[in-house]
Protein backbone atom coordinates (compact mmCIF):
# COMPACT_ATOMS: atom_id res chain seq x y z
CA UNK A 1 0.00 0.00 0.00
CA UNK A 2 1.31 3.43 -0.84
CA UNK A 3 2.10 5.82 1.96
CA UNK A 4 -0.25 8.48 0.56
CA UNK A 5 -3.16 6.08 0.67
CA UNK A 6 -2.36 5.17 4.26
CA UNK A 7 -2.10 8.80 5.24
CA UNK A 8 -5.50 9.25 3.66
CA UNK A 9 -6.84 6.51 5.93
CA UNK A 10 -5.23 8.14 8.93
CA UNK A 11 -6.91 11.40 8.00
CA UNK A 12 -10.27 9.62 7.78
CA UNK A 13 -9.82 7.98 11.17
CA UNK A 14 -8.91 11.29 12.77
CA UNK A 15 -11.85 12.87 10.97
CA UNK A 16 -14.22 10.27 12.38
CA UNK A 17 -12.99 11.00 15.88
CA UNK A 18 -13.35 14.74 15.47
CA UNK A 19 -16.79 14.03 14.04
CA UNK A 20 -17.80 12.16 17.16
CA UNK A 21 -17.14 15.28 19.19
CA UNK A 22 -19.14 17.42 16.78
CA UNK A 23 -21.94 14.89 17.02
CA UNK A 24 -21.82 15.12 20.79
CA UNK A 25 -22.45 18.85 20.71
CA UNK A 26 -25.13 18.50 18.05
CA UNK A 27 -26.89 15.86 20.15
CA UNK A 28 -27.54 18.40 22.88
CA UNK A 29 -29.28 20.63 20.34
CA UNK A 30 -31.40 17.82 18.95
CA UNK A 31 -32.63 16.71 22.39
CA UNK A 32 -34.05 20.11 23.24
CA UNK A 33 -35.25 20.94 19.74
CA UNK A 34 -37.22 17.72 19.45
CA UNK A 35 -38.94 18.00 22.79
CA UNK A 36 -39.77 21.70 22.82
CA UNK A 37 -39.11 23.18 19.39
CA UNK A 38 -36.50 25.45 20.94
CA UNK A 39 -33.24 25.90 19.05
CA UNK A 40 -30.92 26.24 22.01
CA UNK A 41 -28.19 28.67 21.07
CA UNK A 42 -26.81 28.33 24.59
CA UNK A 43 -25.77 24.69 24.13
CA UNK A 44 -22.12 25.64 23.52
CA UNK A 45 -22.06 27.91 26.55
CA UNK A 46 -23.61 25.10 28.58
CA UNK A 47 -20.63 22.95 27.59
CA UNK A 48 -18.29 25.75 28.67
CA UNK A 49 -20.16 26.39 31.89
CA UNK A 50 -20.25 22.73 32.88
CA UNK A 51 -16.53 22.33 32.17
CA UNK A 52 -15.76 25.48 34.20
CA UNK A 53 -17.89 24.18 37.04
CA UNK A 54 -16.19 20.81 36.94
CA UNK A 55 -12.71 22.33 37.13
CA UNK A 56 -13.83 24.80 39.78
CA UNK A 57 -15.25 22.09 42.01
CA UNK A 58 -12.25 19.81 41.53
CA UNK A 59 -9.82 22.56 42.46
CA UNK A 60 -11.90 23.69 45.39
CA UNK A 61 -12.44 27.19 44.05
CA UNK A 62 -14.87 29.42 45.90
CA UNK A 63 -17.69 30.29 43.50
CA UNK A 64 -18.21 34.03 42.98
CA UNK A 65 -14.93 34.61 44.81
CA UNK A 66 -14.23 37.97 43.19
CA UNK A 67 -17.75 39.20 43.86
CA UNK A 68 -17.56 38.13 47.51
CA UNK A 69 -14.14 39.71 47.93
CA UNK A 70 -15.27 42.95 46.33
CA UNK A 71 -18.32 43.24 48.56
CA UNK A 72 -16.88 42.11 51.88
CA UNK A 73 -13.29 43.19 51.38
CA UNK A 74 -12.10 39.66 52.02
CA UNK A 75 -9.50 37.78 50.05
CA UNK A 76 -10.70 34.21 49.61
CA UNK A 77 -10.16 32.22 46.48
CA UNK A 78 -9.91 28.58 47.44
CA UNK A 79 -11.49 26.36 50.03
CA UNK A 80 -8.15 24.67 50.34
CA UNK A 81 -9.30 21.22 49.34
CA UNK A 82 -9.46 19.27 46.12
CA UNK A 83 -12.37 17.08 45.13
CA UNK A 84 -11.87 13.71 43.39
CA UNK A 85 -12.95 13.68 39.74
CA UNK A 86 -15.86 11.25 40.13
CA UNK A 87 -17.44 13.21 42.96
CA UNK A 88 -16.87 16.46 41.09
CA UNK A 89 -18.60 15.07 38.00
CA UNK A 90 -21.62 14.02 40.07
CA UNK A 91 -21.77 17.47 41.68
CA UNK A 92 -21.50 19.12 38.28
CA UNK A 93 -24.38 17.02 36.98
CA UNK A 94 -26.32 18.28 40.00
CA UNK A 95 -25.50 21.86 39.06
CA UNK A 96 -26.66 21.26 35.47
CA UNK A 97 -29.96 19.79 36.71
CA UNK A 98 -30.51 22.86 38.88
CA UNK A 99 -29.67 25.02 35.87
CA UNK A 100 -32.21 23.09 33.77
CA UNK A 101 -34.85 23.59 36.41
CA UNK A 102 -34.15 27.30 36.66
CA UNK A 103 -34.23 27.78 32.89
CA UNK A 104 -37.65 26.18 32.82
CA UNK A 105 -38.95 27.93 35.91
CA UNK A 106 -37.75 31.46 35.20
CA UNK A 107 -37.57 31.57 31.43
CA UNK A 108 -39.43 29.14 29.22
CA UNK A 109 -42.44 28.61 31.44
CA UNK A 110 -43.31 32.22 30.78
CA UNK A 111 -42.78 31.88 27.04
CA UNK A 112 -45.04 28.89 26.34
CA UNK A 113 -46.89 29.37 23.06
CA UNK A 114 -44.59 32.13 21.80
CA UNK A 115 -43.32 32.00 18.21
CA UNK A 116 -40.10 30.05 17.62
CA UNK A 117 -38.07 33.15 16.90
CA UNK A 118 -38.87 34.53 20.35
CA UNK A 119 -37.75 31.30 21.99
CA UNK A 120 -34.58 31.38 19.91
CA UNK A 121 -33.86 34.96 20.96
CA UNK A 122 -34.39 33.92 24.56
CA UNK A 123 -31.71 31.25 24.20
CA UNK A 124 -29.29 33.84 22.79
CA UNK A 125 -29.93 35.93 25.87
CA UNK A 126 -29.48 32.83 27.98
CA UNK A 127 -26.14 32.11 26.28
CA UNK A 128 -24.73 35.53 27.17
CA UNK A 129 -26.20 35.40 30.64
CA UNK A 130 -24.68 32.00 31.32
CA UNK A 131 -21.31 33.09 29.94
CA UNK A 132 -21.39 36.03 32.33
CA UNK A 133 -22.39 33.82 35.25
CA UNK A 134 -19.58 31.41 34.39
CA UNK A 135 -17.11 34.28 34.35
CA UNK A 136 -18.38 35.68 37.63
CA UNK A 137 -18.48 32.31 39.33
CA UNK A 138 -15.18 30.80 38.30
CA UNK A 139 -13.06 33.62 36.82
CA UNK A 140 -12.03 34.08 33.24
CA UNK A 141 -8.59 32.51 33.15
CA UNK A 142 -7.83 29.46 31.03
CA UNK A 143 -7.89 26.32 33.15
CA UNK A 144 -6.38 22.91 32.70
CA UNK A 145 -8.71 20.00 33.10
CA UNK A 146 -6.79 17.16 34.77
CA UNK A 147 -9.06 14.16 34.75
CA UNK A 148 -6.20 11.70 34.33
CA UNK A 149 -7.34 10.84 30.80
CA UNK A 150 -4.58 9.47 28.57
CA UNK A 151 -3.03 12.06 26.28
CA UNK A 152 -0.70 12.13 23.32
CA UNK A 153 -0.26 9.79 20.36
CA UNK A 154 -0.75 6.10 20.89
CA UNK A 155 2.61 4.39 20.50
CA UNK A 156 1.02 0.97 20.34
CA UNK A 157 -0.99 1.86 17.25
CA UNK A 158 1.98 3.61 15.70
CA UNK A 159 4.25 0.62 16.15
CA UNK A 160 1.61 -1.83 15.03
CA UNK A 161 0.97 -0.04 11.76
CA UNK A 162 4.39 1.32 10.92
CA UNK A 163 5.30 -1.65 8.74
CA UNK A 164 2.35 -1.22 6.39
CA UNK A 165 3.55 1.38 3.94
CA UNK A 166 7.24 0.95 3.37
CA UNK A 167 9.92 3.39 4.42
CA UNK A 168 7.90 6.59 3.91
CA UNK A 169 5.20 5.60 6.35
CA UNK A 170 5.75 5.78 10.09
CA UNK A 171 2.45 4.32 11.25
CA UNK A 172 -0.87 5.91 12.18
CA UNK A 173 -0.72 8.80 14.60
CA UNK A 174 -3.84 8.66 16.72
CA UNK A 175 -4.34 10.68 19.89
CA UNK A 176 -5.24 8.54 22.89
CA UNK A 177 -7.61 11.24 24.11
CA UNK A 178 -9.52 11.01 20.83
CA UNK A 179 -9.90 7.27 21.35
CA UNK A 180 -11.26 7.81 24.86
CA UNK A 181 -13.57 10.55 23.63
CA UNK A 182 -14.91 8.29 20.91
CA UNK A 183 -15.61 5.45 23.33
CA UNK A 184 -17.30 7.79 25.79
CA UNK A 185 -19.40 9.39 23.07
CA UNK A 186 -20.52 6.02 21.71
CA UNK A 187 -21.47 4.85 25.21
CA UNK A 188 -23.39 8.06 25.80
CA UNK A 189 -25.33 7.71 22.57
CA UNK A 190 -26.21 4.08 23.33
CA UNK A 191 -27.40 5.11 26.79
CA UNK A 192 -29.49 7.98 25.47
CA UNK A 193 -31.11 5.87 22.78
CA UNK A 194 -31.86 3.06 25.25
CA UNK A 195 -33.31 5.57 27.71
CA UNK A 196 -35.56 7.18 25.13
CA UNK A 197 -36.68 3.94 23.50
CA UNK A 198 -37.19 1.54 26.39
CA UNK A 199 -38.14 3.48 29.50
CA UNK A 200 -41.29 5.19 30.59
CA UNK A 201 -39.64 8.61 30.78
CA UNK A 202 -38.10 8.13 27.37
CA UNK A 203 -41.51 7.31 26.02
CA UNK A 204 -42.94 10.40 27.69
CA UNK A 205 -40.14 12.47 26.15
CA UNK A 206 -40.91 11.20 22.68
CA UNK A 207 -44.60 11.75 23.31
CA UNK A 208 -44.03 15.40 24.24
CA UNK A 209 -41.79 15.82 21.19
CA UNK A 210 -44.63 14.59 19.04
CA UNK A 211 -47.80 16.25 20.32
CA UNK A 212 -48.20 18.44 23.40
CA UNK A 213 -51.95 18.19 23.68
CA UNK A 214 -51.98 14.41 23.39
CA UNK A 215 -49.17 14.21 25.94
CA UNK A 216 -51.25 16.22 28.42
CA UNK A 217 -54.23 13.96 27.85
CA UNK A 218 -52.30 10.87 28.96
CA UNK A 219 -51.11 12.65 32.08
CA UNK A 220 -47.63 13.83 31.14
CA UNK A 221 -46.45 17.04 32.79
CA UNK A 222 -44.82 19.12 30.07
CA UNK A 223 -42.86 21.11 32.62
CA UNK A 224 -41.32 18.01 34.10
CA UNK A 225 -40.33 16.63 30.72
CA UNK A 226 -38.77 19.94 29.69
CA UNK A 227 -36.68 20.03 32.86
CA UNK A 228 -35.67 16.44 32.16
CA UNK A 229 -34.70 17.26 28.59
CA UNK A 230 -32.69 20.33 29.60
CA UNK A 231 -30.97 18.23 32.25
CA UNK A 232 -30.06 15.61 29.67
CA UNK A 233 -28.80 18.34 27.35
CA UNK A 234 -26.77 19.71 30.27
CA UNK A 235 -25.30 16.26 30.82
CA UNK A 236 -24.42 15.92 27.14
CA UNK A 237 -22.90 19.42 27.30
CA UNK A 238 -20.81 18.35 30.28
CA UNK A 239 -19.43 15.36 28.39
CA UNK A 240 -18.68 17.53 25.35
CA UNK A 241 -17.14 20.21 27.56
CA UNK A 242 -14.93 17.68 29.33
CA UNK A 243 -13.66 16.16 26.08
CA UNK A 244 -12.94 19.51 24.41
CA UNK A 245 -11.64 20.94 27.65
CA UNK A 246 -9.23 18.07 28.16
CA UNK A 247 -7.99 18.62 24.63
CA UNK A 248 -7.46 22.35 24.55
CA UNK A 249 -8.00 23.63 28.07
CA UNK A 250 -11.18 25.10 29.53
CA UNK A 251 -11.46 28.55 28.03
CA UNK A 252 -14.23 30.81 26.88
CA UNK A 253 -13.74 30.02 23.20
CA UNK A 254 -15.19 26.61 24.09
CA UNK A 255 -18.62 28.14 23.66
CA UNK A 256 -17.88 28.58 19.96
CA UNK A 257 -18.10 24.84 19.37
CA UNK A 258 -21.82 25.51 19.21
CA UNK A 259 -21.18 27.15 15.85
CA UNK A 260 -19.54 23.97 14.60
CA UNK A 261 -22.69 22.09 15.54
CA UNK A 262 -24.80 24.19 13.18
CA UNK A 263 -23.55 22.61 9.93
CA UNK A 264 -23.79 19.21 11.61
CA UNK A 265 -27.45 19.87 12.33
CA UNK A 266 -28.15 21.14 8.85
CA UNK A 267 -26.67 17.97 7.43
CA UNK A 268 -28.25 15.56 9.86
CA UNK A 269 -31.56 17.28 10.42
CA UNK A 270 -32.61 19.12 13.57
CA UNK A 271 -34.93 16.40 14.78
CA UNK A 272 -32.94 13.23 14.38
CA UNK A 273 -30.52 11.70 16.89
CA UNK A 274 -29.02 9.31 14.30
CA UNK A 275 -28.87 12.34 11.99
CA UNK A 276 -26.74 14.27 14.48
CA UNK A 277 -24.30 11.36 14.66
CA UNK A 278 -24.11 10.79 10.91
CA UNK A 279 -23.89 14.54 10.29
CA UNK A 280 -21.08 14.91 12.81
CA UNK A 281 -19.11 12.08 11.22
CA UNK A 282 -19.58 13.43 7.70
CA UNK A 283 -18.45 16.92 8.73
CA UNK A 284 -15.50 15.53 10.69
CA UNK A 285 -14.27 13.29 7.90
CA UNK A 286 -15.20 15.77 5.17
CA UNK A 287 -13.23 18.69 6.56
CA UNK A 288 -10.14 16.63 7.39
CA UNK A 289 -10.14 14.90 4.02
CA UNK A 290 -10.78 18.15 2.16
CA UNK A 291 -7.90 19.79 3.99
CA UNK A 292 -5.66 16.84 3.13
CA UNK A 293 -6.61 16.59 -0.54
CA UNK A 294 -7.61 20.11 -1.61
CA UNK A 295 -6.07 22.21 1.16
CA UNK A 296 -2.53 22.36 -0.26
CA UNK A 297 -3.89 23.65 -3.60
CA UNK A 298 -5.72 26.62 -2.08
CA UNK A 299 -3.29 27.51 0.63
CA UNK A 300 -4.78 25.48 3.47
CA UNK A 301 -6.99 26.52 6.40
CA UNK A 302 -10.02 25.02 4.68
CA UNK A 303 -11.18 23.50 7.97
CA UNK A 304 -12.48 26.89 9.00
CA UNK A 305 -15.05 27.14 6.26
CA UNK A 306 -15.56 23.72 4.69
CA UNK A 307 -18.32 22.64 7.09
CA UNK A 308 -20.35 25.79 6.48
CA UNK A 309 -20.09 25.54 2.71
CA UNK A 310 -21.18 21.91 2.87
CA UNK A 311 -24.13 22.96 5.03
CA UNK A 312 -25.04 25.64 2.51
CA UNK A 313 -25.09 23.08 -0.28
CA UNK A 314 -27.37 20.94 1.81
CA UNK A 315 -29.66 23.86 2.56
CA UNK A 316 -30.16 24.35 -1.16
CA UNK A 317 -30.74 20.75 -2.16
CA UNK A 318 -32.11 19.03 0.94
CA UNK A 319 -33.27 21.57 3.52
CA UNK A 320 -34.63 18.99 5.95
CA UNK A 321 -31.20 17.36 6.25
CA UNK A 322 -30.27 13.75 5.63
CA UNK A 323 -32.51 12.17 8.25
CA UNK A 324 -34.77 15.01 9.35
CA UNK A 325 -38.52 14.96 9.00
CA UNK A 326 -39.71 16.16 5.64
CA UNK A 327 -41.25 19.54 5.66
CA UNK A 328 -44.67 19.24 4.11
CA UNK A 329 -47.07 22.09 4.31
CA UNK A 330 -50.64 21.35 3.41
CA UNK A 331 -52.08 24.10 1.29
Amino acid at each position, binding site marked *: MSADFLYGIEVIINGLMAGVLYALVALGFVLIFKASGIFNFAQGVMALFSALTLVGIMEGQVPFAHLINAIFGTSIHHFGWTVPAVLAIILTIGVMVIFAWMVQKFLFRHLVGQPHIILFMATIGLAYFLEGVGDLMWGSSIKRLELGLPQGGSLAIENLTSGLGGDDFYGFFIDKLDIVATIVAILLVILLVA*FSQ*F*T*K*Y*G*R*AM*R*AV*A*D*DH*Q*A*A*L*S*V*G*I*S*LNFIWVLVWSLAGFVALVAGVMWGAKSGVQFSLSLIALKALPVLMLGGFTSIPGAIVGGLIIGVGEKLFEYLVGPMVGGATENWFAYVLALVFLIFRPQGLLG*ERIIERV
Partner: protein
Amino acid sequence: MNIQATEGYVTEDGRKIGGTVLDLKNITLRFGGLTAINDISFDIRKGEIRAIIGPNGAGKSSMLNVISGFYKPQEGEVWFNGKKRSAVKPYEVARQGVARTFQNIALFEGMSVLDNVMTGRLNLMKASMWQQALWIGKAEKEEIENRQKVEHIIDFLEIQAIRKTPVGRLPYGLKKRVELARALAAEPDLLLLDEPMAGMNVEEKEDMSRFILDVNDEFGTTIALIEHDMGVVMDLSDRVVVMDYGRKIGDGVPDEVRNNPEVIDAYLGVSHD
Protein backbone atom coordinates in the same frame (compact mmCIF):
# COMPACT_ATOMS: atom_id res chain seq x y z
CA MET B 1 -87.90 5.16 35.99
CA ASN B 2 -86.46 7.61 38.45
CA ILE B 3 -83.02 8.52 37.23
CA GLN B 4 -82.49 11.24 39.80
CA ALA B 5 -81.95 8.63 42.52
CA THR B 6 -78.40 8.74 43.79
CA GLU B 7 -78.05 5.00 44.07
CA GLY B 8 -77.98 4.27 40.35
CA TYR B 9 -80.49 2.57 38.09
CA VAL B 10 -80.95 -0.39 35.78
CA THR B 11 -80.94 0.19 32.02
CA GLU B 12 -83.46 -1.21 29.56
CA ASP B 13 -81.06 -3.96 28.57
CA GLY B 14 -80.56 -4.91 32.20
CA ARG B 15 -77.13 -3.43 33.00
CA LYS B 16 -76.76 -2.06 36.50
CA ILE B 17 -75.52 1.51 36.65
CA GLY B 18 -73.75 2.63 39.81
CA GLY B 19 -73.38 5.88 41.72
CA THR B 20 -72.14 9.23 40.51
CA VAL B 21 -68.63 9.38 39.05
CA LEU B 22 -68.68 12.93 37.82
CA ASP B 23 -70.98 15.69 38.96
CA LEU B 24 -71.03 19.06 37.23
CA LYS B 25 -72.72 21.84 39.17
CA ASN B 26 -73.73 25.11 37.53
CA ILE B 27 -70.79 25.28 35.14
CA THR B 28 -70.33 28.58 33.30
CA LEU B 29 -67.50 29.12 30.84
CA ARG B 30 -66.84 32.39 29.03
CA PHE B 31 -64.36 33.41 26.38
CA GLY B 32 -64.27 37.16 26.71
CA GLY B 33 -67.81 38.26 25.99
CA LEU B 34 -68.91 34.93 24.57
CA THR B 35 -70.59 32.52 26.92
CA ALA B 36 -69.74 29.04 25.67
CA ILE B 37 -71.38 27.21 28.54
CA ASN B 38 -74.19 28.79 30.50
CA ASP B 39 -75.01 27.41 33.95
CA ILE B 40 -75.07 23.71 33.09
CA SER B 41 -75.40 20.89 35.58
CA PHE B 42 -75.49 17.16 34.98
CA ASP B 43 -73.91 14.00 36.28
CA ILE B 44 -72.32 10.86 34.93
CA ARG B 45 -72.89 7.52 36.66
CA LYS B 46 -70.55 4.61 37.02
CA GLY B 47 -70.79 2.20 34.10
CA GLU B 48 -73.08 4.21 31.90
CA ILE B 49 -72.65 5.60 28.41
CA ARG B 50 -73.54 9.25 28.57
CA ALA B 51 -73.86 11.33 25.44
CA ILE B 52 -73.63 15.08 25.03
CA ILE B 53 -75.30 16.19 21.82
CA GLY B 54 -76.26 19.42 20.17
CA PRO B 55 -75.89 21.37 16.94
CA ASN B 56 -72.56 22.87 15.88
CA GLY B 57 -71.33 25.56 18.25
CA ALA B 58 -73.57 24.40 21.08
CA GLY B 59 -70.62 24.13 23.48
CA LYS B 60 -70.21 20.36 23.51
CA SER B 61 -66.46 20.34 23.00
CA SER B 62 -66.04 23.12 25.54
CA MET B 63 -67.93 20.94 28.00
CA LEU B 64 -65.57 18.05 27.37
CA ASN B 65 -62.58 20.34 27.74
CA VAL B 66 -63.90 21.52 31.09
CA ILE B 67 -64.25 17.93 32.27
CA SER B 68 -60.74 17.03 31.11
CA GLY B 69 -59.23 20.18 32.60
CA PHE B 70 -58.17 21.85 29.35
CA TYR B 71 -60.56 24.73 30.06
CA LYS B 72 -61.26 26.23 33.46
CA PRO B 73 -64.84 27.34 34.02
CA GLN B 74 -65.36 30.77 35.60
CA GLU B 75 -68.22 29.50 37.71
CA GLY B 76 -69.44 26.19 39.01
CA GLU B 77 -68.00 23.09 40.56
CA VAL B 78 -66.69 19.81 39.20
CA TRP B 79 -67.03 16.86 41.54
CA PHE B 80 -65.07 13.77 40.58
CA ASN B 81 -65.25 10.48 42.48
CA GLY B 82 -67.00 12.19 45.36
CA LYS B 83 -64.42 14.97 45.76
CA LYS B 84 -64.61 18.55 44.66
CA ARG B 85 -61.92 19.21 42.11
CA SER B 86 -59.82 22.30 42.62
CA ALA B 87 -58.22 24.14 39.71
CA VAL B 88 -55.96 21.53 38.14
CA LYS B 89 -53.85 21.14 35.03
CA PRO B 90 -54.94 18.75 32.27
CA TYR B 91 -52.19 16.25 33.08
CA GLU B 92 -53.30 16.15 36.71
CA VAL B 93 -56.87 15.43 35.63
CA ALA B 94 -55.53 12.59 33.49
CA ARG B 95 -53.64 11.22 36.49
CA GLN B 96 -56.82 11.29 38.56
CA GLY B 97 -58.41 8.87 36.10
CA VAL B 98 -59.95 10.79 33.20
CA ALA B 99 -58.80 9.66 29.76
CA ARG B 100 -59.92 11.30 26.54
CA THR B 101 -59.73 11.30 22.78
CA PHE B 102 -59.74 14.35 20.53
CA GLN B 103 -62.01 15.42 17.71
CA ASN B 104 -59.02 16.05 15.43
CA ILE B 105 -57.02 13.05 16.68
CA ALA B 106 -53.99 13.82 18.81
CA LEU B 107 -51.69 10.84 18.50
CA PHE B 108 -47.92 10.60 18.55
CA GLU B 109 -47.52 10.29 14.79
CA GLY B 110 -43.86 9.32 14.80
CA MET B 111 -44.29 6.48 17.28
CA SER B 112 -45.58 2.97 16.62
CA VAL B 113 -49.11 1.93 17.55
CA LEU B 114 -47.72 -0.13 20.41
CA ASP B 115 -45.70 2.80 21.80
CA ASN B 116 -48.71 5.07 21.47
CA VAL B 117 -50.89 2.74 23.47
CA MET B 118 -48.08 2.25 26.02
CA THR B 119 -48.01 5.99 26.71
CA GLY B 120 -51.55 5.53 28.00
CA ARG B 121 -50.10 3.51 30.87
CA LEU B 122 -47.40 6.01 31.88
CA ASN B 123 -49.16 6.89 35.08
CA LEU B 124 -49.71 3.30 36.08
CA MET B 125 -45.98 2.62 36.02
CA LYS B 126 -44.42 3.38 39.35
CA ALA B 127 -40.70 2.65 38.94
CA SER B 128 -38.57 5.68 39.70
CA MET B 129 -36.44 7.50 37.17
CA TRP B 130 -33.27 5.82 38.49
CA GLN B 131 -34.77 2.37 38.34
CA GLN B 132 -35.92 3.12 34.81
CA ALA B 133 -32.63 4.57 33.67
CA LEU B 134 -30.56 1.74 35.13
CA TRP B 135 -33.20 -0.90 34.42
CA ILE B 136 -33.10 -2.24 37.98
CA GLY B 137 -35.66 -2.98 40.67
CA LYS B 138 -39.22 -3.26 39.44
CA ALA B 139 -38.58 -1.52 36.12
CA GLU B 140 -38.39 -4.65 33.98
CA LYS B 141 -41.20 -6.57 35.68
CA GLU B 142 -43.42 -3.54 35.44
CA GLU B 143 -42.69 -3.01 31.76
CA ILE B 144 -43.63 -6.63 31.02
CA GLU B 145 -46.86 -6.48 33.03
CA ASN B 146 -47.94 -3.27 31.38
CA ARG B 147 -47.01 -4.59 27.99
CA GLN B 148 -49.34 -7.57 28.56
CA LYS B 149 -52.24 -5.30 29.48
CA VAL B 150 -51.61 -3.23 26.38
CA GLU B 151 -51.47 -6.30 24.14
CA HIS B 152 -54.84 -7.33 25.54
CA ILE B 153 -56.35 -3.98 24.60
CA ILE B 154 -54.75 -4.13 21.16
CA ASP B 155 -56.27 -7.57 20.61
CA PHE B 156 -59.59 -6.36 21.88
CA LEU B 157 -59.75 -3.46 19.44
CA GLU B 158 -58.51 -5.67 16.58
CA ILE B 159 -55.41 -3.67 15.73
CA GLN B 160 -52.84 -6.47 16.18
CA ALA B 161 -51.86 -6.35 12.53
CA ILE B 162 -50.62 -2.76 12.77
CA ARG B 163 -48.91 -2.96 16.17
CA LYS B 164 -45.49 -1.91 14.88
CA THR B 165 -46.67 0.57 12.25
CA PRO B 166 -45.92 4.25 12.85
CA VAL B 167 -49.25 5.93 13.50
CA GLY B 168 -48.60 8.61 10.88
CA ARG B 169 -49.04 6.03 8.13
CA LEU B 170 -52.45 4.77 9.24
CA PRO B 171 -55.77 5.73 7.66
CA TYR B 172 -58.16 7.95 9.58
CA GLY B 173 -60.49 5.25 10.88
CA LEU B 174 -57.65 3.20 12.35
CA LYS B 175 -56.09 6.27 13.96
CA LYS B 176 -59.36 6.87 15.77
CA ARG B 177 -59.22 3.31 17.04
CA VAL B 178 -55.60 3.67 18.21
CA GLU B 179 -56.58 6.80 20.08
CA LEU B 180 -59.36 4.86 21.77
CA ALA B 181 -56.85 2.13 22.65
CA ARG B 182 -54.48 4.64 24.21
CA ALA B 183 -57.23 6.18 26.31
CA LEU B 184 -58.42 2.74 27.35
CA ALA B 185 -54.90 1.66 28.34
CA ALA B 186 -55.00 4.16 31.20
CA GLU B 187 -57.86 2.13 32.78
CA PRO B 188 -59.74 5.37 33.34
CA ASP B 189 -62.62 5.89 35.76
CA LEU B 190 -64.10 8.09 33.08
CA LEU B 191 -63.47 7.90 29.35
CA LEU B 192 -64.25 10.99 27.27
CA LEU B 193 -64.73 10.58 23.52
CA ASP B 194 -64.82 13.74 21.45
CA GLU B 195 -66.80 12.94 18.28
CA PRO B 196 -65.49 9.38 17.97
CA MET B 197 -67.35 8.94 14.69
CA ALA B 198 -66.72 12.27 13.00
CA GLY B 199 -65.64 11.92 9.39
CA MET B 200 -66.30 8.19 9.21
CA ASN B 201 -68.26 6.24 6.64
CA VAL B 202 -71.23 4.09 7.66
CA GLU B 203 -69.19 0.92 8.03
CA GLU B 204 -66.52 2.59 10.17
CA LYS B 205 -69.24 4.16 12.30
CA GLU B 206 -70.78 0.75 12.90
CA ASP B 207 -67.38 -0.64 13.88
CA MET B 208 -66.73 2.20 16.27
CA SER B 209 -70.20 1.90 17.84
CA ARG B 210 -69.56 -1.78 18.38
CA PHE B 211 -66.20 -1.09 20.02
CA ILE B 212 -67.67 1.53 22.33
CA LEU B 213 -70.40 -0.87 23.45
CA ASP B 214 -67.89 -3.71 23.83
CA VAL B 215 -65.51 -1.59 25.86
CA ASN B 216 -68.32 -0.57 28.18
CA ASP B 217 -69.44 -4.17 28.45
CA GLU B 218 -66.03 -5.84 28.85
CA PHE B 219 -64.21 -3.35 31.08
CA GLY B 220 -67.24 -1.67 32.66
CA THR B 221 -65.78 1.68 31.59
CA THR B 222 -67.84 4.77 32.20
CA ILE B 223 -68.02 6.66 28.93
CA ALA B 224 -69.06 10.19 28.06
CA LEU B 225 -69.17 10.98 24.36
CA ILE B 226 -69.94 13.88 22.11
CA GLU B 227 -71.66 13.27 18.83
CA HIS B 228 -73.89 15.17 16.52
CA ASP B 229 -75.25 12.19 14.61
CA MET B 230 -78.55 11.74 16.48
CA GLY B 231 -79.20 8.25 15.17
CA VAL B 232 -75.93 6.82 16.44
CA VAL B 233 -76.25 8.49 19.81
CA MET B 234 -79.73 7.24 20.47
CA ASP B 235 -78.73 3.63 19.84
CA LEU B 236 -75.57 3.86 21.87
CA SER B 237 -76.20 5.82 24.99
CA ASP B 238 -78.04 5.25 28.24
CA ARG B 239 -78.67 8.91 28.93
CA VAL B 240 -78.31 12.01 26.80
CA VAL B 241 -77.63 15.68 27.57
CA VAL B 242 -78.71 18.08 24.85
CA MET B 243 -77.01 21.45 24.52
CA ASP B 244 -77.85 24.43 22.38
CA TYR B 245 -76.19 27.86 22.44
CA GLY B 246 -74.35 26.91 25.65
CA ARG B 247 -77.51 25.99 27.56
CA LYS B 248 -78.82 22.59 28.54
CA ILE B 249 -82.16 22.03 26.83
CA GLY B 250 -82.70 18.38 27.56
CA ASP B 251 -81.46 15.54 29.75
CA GLY B 252 -82.70 11.99 30.01
CA VAL B 253 -83.01 8.60 28.37
CA PRO B 254 -82.94 8.69 24.54
CA ASP B 255 -86.69 8.33 24.11
CA GLU B 256 -87.40 11.17 26.48
CA VAL B 257 -84.95 13.43 24.69
CA ARG B 258 -86.21 12.50 21.25
CA ASN B 259 -89.70 13.68 22.13
CA ASN B 260 -88.60 16.85 23.87
CA PRO B 261 -90.06 19.76 21.82
CA GLU B 262 -87.13 22.06 22.60
CA VAL B 263 -84.68 19.49 21.30
CA ILE B 264 -86.68 19.02 18.12
CA ASP B 265 -86.67 22.80 17.64
CA ALA B 266 -82.93 23.03 18.09
CA TYR B 267 -82.28 20.30 15.59
CA LEU B 268 -84.81 21.42 13.01
CA GLY B 269 -83.83 25.05 13.39
CA VAL B 270 -87.13 26.51 14.61
CA SER B 271 -86.67 30.06 15.81
CA HIS B 272 -86.63 30.69 19.55
CA ASP B 273 -89.50 33.03 20.13
